[in-house]
């Protein structure tokens, strides 16, 4: 028979159950702590330097990890990464994710202190602004004589791209090299516009063909006209990316700026270099309410599924012939050309009472600051290579995707200029005339580059979604968003402070 052992049975020196448990837990804690600290200290780098390899091959045999959003430019790079490996001897692993998943991975990677990903697709609003301290100031690598320089210098990058995608707060520090540059432009069915041009002009009293003089009021009138008169050719005149998502904020912002509103005072600077303290939100202005009012009116005549579409949904619907026109990222041109060859054309977005505004959504390549010195240097090789003019040109020709260049020199190449007109072997460059106008300082739309943007963005698209669902009027939606943003900004940014 087994009897419980009483306390009196203990001899001095015997290990009691409680002491044993305490010891084991303490030991486990110590081991875990040591493991964590050890993990913070050493990353087990797969990068080793061989100076005899020269400028480009000094890290031959190393492995780099590049984390990117699943965008067209990265698809093109992934499909054509062999030249980089042949040039440098570096093996490149590319991890592509949906943007919100990428932001999580990057944040946790930076928090861990171990750079699993040396090269980072640094979205200016969701990665660069909140985690600028976790990225290398690339000037230190530009100044390193043992490394290749940026071909044609950073001055070759389109200035607004370098400012918006590459810098944060300081005009001198450079955290990322501009890598892609999706921009919202007016995409329209040229075949349908030409077919109905005279009738529309007669009925509406203006030439409907999109141009520099086109206004948002005209856009609305054209959308209604298609709804009423061309159902046999296209179900709806316009479609929008108005799902409760980042896309809704993008879509609305074009109108906000066109009507003279903005998220904060000095919006150009807050969107350009960015700031950690943007001051009070200005969405409670009459201009913002007017823009919201027009947006709600526009969505009433848009394809009803607009409320469920993000940019992909809208891109698919446009290519499927569901709408005659829409504002969407210009990098959808390649898929438009594949599905509706020769039928789609592009223009800068219409003007509002104040200006035309075209949301810029470009991104740069940054390098994690939790890397070792050699990892940074090896990562720099990739950043320089991936943003070089000849690679941007190759991306334009890629069958796997490819965005549009971020460098002035590439747009000036004769073959690129020739490809701006059909027949074109570089379908994305068909948008060049429209986007080059969209990127002019007076037309570009730059959302606030602030560390707490993700939360502000969520407040904006949630309130807009409520407005579109009829839960609140435009004035109320803008006031509620203002209150929420002011609360978010006053709390400050927690994670990287």
């Amino acid at each position, binding site marked *: 028979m087994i009897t419980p052992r009483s306390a009196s049975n203990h001899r001095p020196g015997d290990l009691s*159950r409680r002491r*044993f*448990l305490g010891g*084991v*837990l303490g030991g*486990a*804690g110590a081991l*875990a702590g040591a493991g964590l600290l050890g993990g*913070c200290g050493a990353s087990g780098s797969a990068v080793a330097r061989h100076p005899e390899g020269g400028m480009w091959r000094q890290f031959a045999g190393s492995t780099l990890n590049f984390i990117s959003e699943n965008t067209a430019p990265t698809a093109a790079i992934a499909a054509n990464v062999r030249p980089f490996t042949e040039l440098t001897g570096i093996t490149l692993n590319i991890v592509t994710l949906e943007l*919100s998943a990428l*932001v*999580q991975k990057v*944040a*946790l990677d*930076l*928090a*861990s*202190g171990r750079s699993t990903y040396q090269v980072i697709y640094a979205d200016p609003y969701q990665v660069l602004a*909140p*985690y600028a*301290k*976790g990225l290398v100031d690339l000037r230190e690598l530009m100044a390193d004589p043992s490394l290749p320089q940026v071909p044609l210098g950073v001055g070759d990058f389109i200035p607004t791209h370098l400012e918006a995608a590459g810098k944060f707060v300081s005009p001198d520090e450079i955290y990322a090299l501009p890598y892609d540059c999706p921009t919202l432009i007016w995409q329209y069915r040229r075949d349908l516009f030409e077919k109905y041009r005279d009738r529309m002009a007669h009925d509406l009293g203006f030439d409907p063909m999109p141009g520099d003089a086109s206004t948002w009021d005209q856009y609305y009138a054209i959308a209604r006209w298609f709804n009423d008169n061309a159902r046999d050719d296209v179900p709806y005149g316009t479609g929008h990316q108005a*799902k*409760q*998502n980042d896309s809704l904020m993008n879509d609305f912002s074009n109108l906000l700026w066109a009507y003279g509103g903005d998220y904060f005072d000095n919006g150009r600077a807050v969107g350009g270099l960015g700031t950690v303290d943007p001051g009070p939100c200005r969405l409670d202005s009459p201009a913002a309410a007017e823009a919201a009012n027009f947006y709600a009116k526009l969505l009433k005549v848009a*394809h*009803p*599924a*607009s*409320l*469920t579409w993000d940019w992909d*949904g809208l891109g*698919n*619907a446009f290519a*499927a012939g*569901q709408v005659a026109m829409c504002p969407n990222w210009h990098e959808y041109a390649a898929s438009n050309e594949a599905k509706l060859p020769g039928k789609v054309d592009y223009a800068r977005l219409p003007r509002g009472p104040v200006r035309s505004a075209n949301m810029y959504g470009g991104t740069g390549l940054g390098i994690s600051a939790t890397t070792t010195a050699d990892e940074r240097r090896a990562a720099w090789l990739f950043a320089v290579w991936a943003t070089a003019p000849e690679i941007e040109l190759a991306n334009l020709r890629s069958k796997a995707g490819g965005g549009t260049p971020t460098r002035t020199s590439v747009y000036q190449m004769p073959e690129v200029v020739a490809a701006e007109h059909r027949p074109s072997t570089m379908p994305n460059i068909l948008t060049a005339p429209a986007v080059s106008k969209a990127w002019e300082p007076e037309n570009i739309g730059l959302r606030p580059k602030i560390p*707490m943007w*993700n*939360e502000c963005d*969520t407040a904006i698209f*949630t309130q807009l*979604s*409520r407005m*579109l*669902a009829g*839960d609140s009027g435009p004035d109320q939606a803008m006031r509620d968003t203002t209150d929420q943003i002011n609360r978010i900004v006053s709390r400050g940014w*927690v*994670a*990287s*402070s």
Partner: protein
Amino acid sequence: MTPGILLLAPLSLLPFVFIVAMSLSRVHLLGGVRFDFAGLANWARVFTDPDVGMAWVRSLSYFVLTVGIEMVLGVVFALCLWRLLRGRNAVLSLLLLPMFVAPVFVGLLGRFLTDSTFGLYAWVLRHLGFETDVLGSQGTAFAAVVLMDVWEWTPLITMIALAGLSSVPLSIREAAALDGTSGWQLLRYVVLPSISSVLLVALLIRSMDAIRYFDIIWVTTNGGPADATKIVPVRLYEVAFRFFDLGYAAAIGLLMLAVSILVARAFVRLLDRKGLAR
């Protein structure tokens, strides 16, 4: 108890202590995770945040609707299958199929079927005169995500209820039939009481799952439109992994855990009353 505690410590206890500490802190990520003590600020915010409050209201509605519909339909299907003498296994196999699909694929399937450009259901609804986009308006979007969950998990209830029905003694049913009971009386006074314990277990399993429902909503509506489908887990994910306000997210998560434990305790107490908890 030592082996149990040794096993639980790394799996549950240490993370739990970590999360509690997190909920009382401002969590900094860059340069290594660092906690700054913030007292009860995150907890005060949980109980005063109107967005979280509304998310709880939606969670409750969602919980009642999904679990309620699944229980009713599951029992009805089980009764039908119980009466089925030929081909029961084949029908049961077909009925169980949705259960084996990952929730994220159920969401994608639902999204494609209701897509107004090429969705089959959208096409059918349009021909029935329903022009609104299913996932585009608040009421229909909420109904859609509820129905997607019902489609996936009703078979589980059916399977559990059918197992219970198989154990109802034939002698009791025959005795009831000899006494002249109607079909409804047999169901009300003999069958349902006999399987009530099994149904309670099914209810417990589904309830625990429904509280942390996330995948289908994230894939289909992202919590919209107008926050109509933003239940607590979606809000929690947003706070933790979009805003990286990990201290506040920990407080929301712990509150969810407390609610789950309360619900589970309520069911276990019911089982206990029936003498089935041990």
